[in-house]
């Protein structure tokens, strides 16, 4: 697949997150990379080095925008000034789709700069979907929402996380950025089966996948993005692409960042599973209709 309406009918392969320590290497060596994912907020500025670097990258590579501050799940209305800046950037990058997280992070205009987990209720899903639609209509771009890793659950929740994700994306008619590592991290923190999660999301809506490393503590796992991808996450990824089809995949490595080559080599390990999935000639996932859990 995975060219679908949610990733702008593109068929991207394995991408890398564009990070500052790798700028010089990428600009001077011009390594072969299928596409780069940029953090939108880094480039939502008026000028200077960030935009100079971005323009040079855009001259050589395909770029997809990924954000961390739209906070679709916050009760607040979207910030128009923020959206205006974001739209200007999308015109510059020509990103075929735009992703951000299924979370909240601002309250009454104050920002946490964190990806805080949602209460899984119908009202929260409705409000979140409404905001995704507002943003999509303003930006005139396909939107994919990413499941976050979480460390708490709410008493008020009325459904599982994957049911909530399905409810939101069906109501919003948007795509999913399936973060396989986040599913794994949350499954360990909350005690569910990660395969139940992957089996039960609407596969035809998966626009992109994320893989990453995490860190285990005594009582919980933190989504640190500072390690290679662990085996259980690779296995879950292999399972996910069997269900969703071969999908644009990105390795996130955001802390203790090693050399560009090391990060790229780690990302390219996904090829093994992609090849297997291609050889298996898996049919494109069928559209599933939403079954209300209520």
């Amino acid at each position, binding site marked *: 697949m995975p060219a679908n309406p949610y990733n702008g009918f593109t068929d991207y392969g394995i991408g890398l997150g564009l990070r500052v*320590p790798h700028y010089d290497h990428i600009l001077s060596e011009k390594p072969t990379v299928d596409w780069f994912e940029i953090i939108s*907020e880094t480039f*939502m*500025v*008026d*000028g*200077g*080095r*960030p*935009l*100079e*670097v971005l323009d040079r990258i855009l001259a050589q590579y395909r770029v997809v925008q990924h954000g961390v*501050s739209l906070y679709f799940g*916050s*009760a*607040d*209305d979207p*910030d*128009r*000034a*923020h959206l205006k800046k974001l739209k200007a950037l999308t015109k510059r990058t020509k990103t075929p789709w735009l992703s951000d997280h299924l979370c*909240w992070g*601002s*309250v*009454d*205009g*104050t*920002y*946490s*700069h*964190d990806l*805080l987990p949602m*209460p899984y*209720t*119908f*009202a*929260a899903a409705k*409000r979140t979907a409404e905001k995704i639609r507002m943003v999509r209509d303003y930006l005139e771009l396909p939107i994919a929402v990413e499941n976050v890793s979480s*460390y*708490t*659950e*709410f*008493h*008020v929740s009325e459904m599982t996380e994957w049911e909530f994700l399905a409810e939101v994306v069906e109501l919003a008619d948007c795509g999913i950025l399936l973060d396989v590592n986040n599913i794994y991290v949350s499954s360990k*923190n*909350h*005690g569910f089966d990660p395969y139940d999660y992957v089996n039960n999301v609407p596969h035809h809506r998966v626009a992109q996948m994320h893989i990453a490393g995490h860190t285990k503590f005594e*009582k*919980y796992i*933190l989504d640190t993005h500072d390690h290679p991808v662990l085996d259980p996450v690779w296995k879950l990824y292999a399972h996910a692409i069997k269900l969703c089809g071969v999908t644009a995949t990105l390795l996130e490595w955001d802390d*203790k*960042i090693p050399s560009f080559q090391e990060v790229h080599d780690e990302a390219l390990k996904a090829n093994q599973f992609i090849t297997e999935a291609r050889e298996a000639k898996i049919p494109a996932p069928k559209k599933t209709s939403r079954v209300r859990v209520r």
Partner: protein
Amino acid sequence: MAAKSKDSKAAVTKAPARVDSTRALAALQRAMWGLVSQPLTAANRMKPRTRDGRSTAAAAAEIAKPNDRLTSFERLEIYNRMYWFRVLDSLYEDCPGLRAVLGDAKFMRMAEAYLQKYPSRSFTLRNLPSRLEKFLREEPKWTRPHTALCLDLVRFEWAQVEVYDGGAKPLFRVEDLAGINPAKVRLALQPYLQLLQLDYPVDDFLIAIKKREALLRGDASNAPTRVRTSKASKVPLPRREKCAVAVHRMDGRIYFKRLEPAACKVLLAIRAGKPLAQALAAGLPRAKSKQLEWAGKVQSWFCTWMQLGWFCRRE
């Protein structure tokens, strides 16, 4: 548009029993944010009492489910710690000069007080120090006895943020003067260029601080090769000495350039939109004999400023 919060140190509100509306969703998020944004204890743990004296454990239990390994309190504590570590780290990185004057412990106490009074109102951490100068003017107790020096440093460090990714307009060229009445010429400065009139030479101080930090780090690698120590000699605090500095950029790098006081006045007048003749009058001596003396100097200033690309086309 998002509504402005009335009180940045928001009281910890009670969590709703159900989230069946946007209003209830907002109430739950306010309740959780009230706990997550509370300052940590000295041991970096979540405080046992909320701002209004309630038991944090009881407030957390209304919001979060416990599991077989963590209590509700411990689950929200993860977010509480991550919030403070993230914002304090960001400010720590942005303010090496202020840190050097205050020392790490005092800086952290000040930063925590600042972020409680002025929590982030921007989608980006870049803007986190934007109200630090205002805060330190309002609460000089955090910077005594070096308040004037600290205010200069905060302005200088914020100027660097603005210069790094501030906007640039098309360069002004000499040909742009064609057909313009020389008496009415108005120039414009690049929006990113920052002009500072300071009471302390904080540019030199900051360069010394950065050199010292680079020495302590060993290199630019993310992975420290050794434990950070303070063996490198401490940089002495600068003495009061008025100076004018332009913070600018070239090829993606930030530079500081000392300006003669008169040159700074001319540039500030240009920035204020004065015609060139008035801008020059703002900085130069009035006596005709002196003006002749200054002609060569003024010519060399403008030559340098053109070469550095500080002038842009007026809109």
